[in-house]
């Protein structure tokens, strides 16, 4: 009696929040769902789970979509125990939740060592007062970004540049060049933070040349174990202790 069992499962079960359940869901997802929806839900043959309608489904609709499939589309049904379906749903939900809530593989301690060492992230990025200033402060990255966003920032830094961090160069009438990131700019003034951490406020009319580039100053991180470790580390960066309930 699948209908009855479904009804019972809906009555008794709800979206799990325990990291172990999300991790269990991730494992099933990687085997059964990632082929169409991508490893982090970014979509490929199937739609993205990170934005649009799929990211806004109510819990029960998400559960039913996985369990029963979507007739008329290529989304098949997955005849799994309700508990397993809820775990997959919980993992899918975690893809759009702050990274701090996600169950992640990787070694966060190694990620920290990379961030402040070999990978040279801290040359531009800062965490709780330690590091550079040319890139965004990542002290609260785990509470403010999803895993997908963190991954994208590392692998494709130029895909989305945070406001105030586009590379810019200004040349004054006297020929002096100021290079750094544009905190802001329009036709009348520019505000550039240079590599030494100094801010330059320049009337546009007094500049001989001004250029803002679309690409990020940040080099991409190759998709290796180091990437997984960096994501694990960044996902744990929260200014205040992160709990799903507190949000």
């Amino acid at each position, binding site marked *: 009696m699948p209908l009855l069992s479904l009804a019972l499962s809906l009555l008794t079960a709800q979206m799990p929040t325990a990291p172990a359940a999300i991790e269990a869901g991730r494992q099933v997802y990687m085997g059964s769902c990632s082929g169409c929806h991508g490893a982090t839900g970014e979509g490929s043959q199937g739609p993205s789970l990170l934005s649009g309608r799929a990211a806004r489904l109510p819990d029960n609709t998400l559960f039913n979509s996985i369990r029963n499939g979507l007739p008329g589309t290529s989304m098949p049904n997955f005849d799994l125990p309700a508990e397993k379906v809820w775990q997959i749903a919980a993992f899918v939900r975690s893809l759009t939740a702050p990274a701090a809530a996600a169950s992640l593989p990787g070694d966060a301690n190694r990620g920290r060592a990379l961030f402040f060492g070999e990978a040279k992230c801290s040359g531009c990025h*800062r965490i*709780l*007062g330690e590091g550079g*200033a040319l890139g965004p*402060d990542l*002290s*609260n990255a785990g*509470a*403010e970004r999803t895993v997908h966003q963190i991954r994208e920032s590392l692998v494709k830094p130029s895909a989305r540049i945070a406001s*105030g961090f586009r590379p810019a160069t200004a*040349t*004054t009438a*006297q*020929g*002096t*060049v*100021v*290079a750094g990131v544009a*905190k*802001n*700019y*329009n036709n*009348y*003034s520019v*505000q550039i*933070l*240079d*590599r*030494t*951490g*100094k*801010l*330059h*406020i*320049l*009337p546009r009319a007094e500049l001989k040349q001004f250029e803002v580039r679309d690409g990020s100053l940040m080099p991409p991180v190759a998709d290796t174990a180091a990437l997984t470790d960096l994501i694990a580390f960044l996902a744990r960066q*929260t*200014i*205040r202790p*992160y709990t799903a309930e*507190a*949000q």
Partner: protein
Amino acid sequence: MKIALLLAIPAISTAQVTPAAIEKSPNSGWLTYNGDYASTRHSSLTQITPANARNLVAKWVFHVEGAKKLEASPIVHDGLMYVSNTNEIYALDARFGRQVWRYRAEQAKGTRVNRGSAILGDNVYFVTADCHLIALNRTTGNLVFDVEYAKFKDGYTTSIAPLAIRNGILVGVAGGGSGQRGFVASLDPVSGKENWRFWTVPAKGEPGSDTWGGFPAEMGGAPTWTTGSYDPELNLVYWPTGNPWPDFYGGRRPGDNLYSDCILALDAATGKLKWHFQTTPHDVWDWDANEPIVLMNATFRGRARKLLVQANRNGFYYILDRVTGEFLHAKPFVAKLDWTSGLDDKGRPKVNPDKIPTPAGTKVCPSVRGASNWMSPSYNPATGLFYVVTLEQCDIIVASAKEPVPASGFRGTGNEGIPTEPGKFYLRALDVLSGDKKWEYPMPGPGIMWAGTVSTAGGVVFTGDDDGNLVALDARSGKDLWHFPTGHSLFASPVTYMAGGKQYVTIATESDVFTFGLFE
């Protein structure tokens, strides 16, 4: 070509903010909530004068997304202006009004308004509504620390602009209307670690605890929700405290209820109480003494003295000796004042018994909002005038003997306006050493403003009015020189500063920051 040859271009300098610089302000910058440690809000800038104020024009407007009620007085230093809103702060280019960075405390709870920030060294400081002090790098907005100094779950919230002094960032809490125990705390500017804390309601057995009739200190109120003043030479912090709780019913807290409605003088190094002066003992009218405390030196009755003045919510303008706390003089600065027949030679009021609120309701003047409130006054030493926004109003106050429960919304009941007697706001210029009114500027409007003033050496005093105008008045005569209708109600005090060699005046409205300068 040379890369970043800094001397040749107008770069923001790396000048750190020192306590000595704050002591000398306000000049080109605006370094504390009330402009300087003495809270005079008197700027040394002179470009804008009574002769040219008519040429003031809007230079830029910055919209604070989502803001409903900006109450902050901006801080300005080194070309950047810091404007805070609930749980967030912006750094703006002070000359062009462009956002340089924004920091939002994403995990903060509470929605209370925010009244401003502080600056010291390379850090800007502000508080979240749930009582975290946050330090940010002033140029980049990067986080330096985020420390909790009171528990939101215990009912604590705050809106205060911190005060940065040598080795301490001073903060306070709300709670006069909800039954928390007030305190002033000094936190280390580098680490955020607490240096000291002064509880404004003494614990059982401590001096002053016998003024509560056994009422629990934990519920006493006496909040510290506005920014105090500081005398670096005496190394004393002057901090005002708010009303005892419950606001309007005093039957369960017989006595003076120290240190509610007080001006406190605290040792800046230790937080120890040097002296206190209580303006409204056993307050049952919600007359917090949280109005700004202005410090000044003058010859008073033939003797050079270090003075402290305050236009209090209870309707009296007070002059105290700030070394000893000695009461020197007081004078009503509103006509509508009937709760007392006067003060004795120690400054203690003789309360009219028929002005104690009753369950049936009692008409009392001034109103609960007070003759003045947290809107900032200013003091111009050249004119000898103290410019203060005043409210002429009475209220019906209703009291209740219900069992008080903290954080329940209970305040011992409350006040009702009198529809036939709406409140009227005025900017009044008082002789600073007598409290005598020298001129006044009436402010027709709906009676809802909380805007304050800024005074300048150029001889102009700026104020927000009750109709949403920023107004420039002649500091000596009160003559109306210029106004700009912002289209919003005003709940913040203006500031003035220099950027790119020009003087500007800024006021935050409900949701925008307006900046004005001379037409050129």
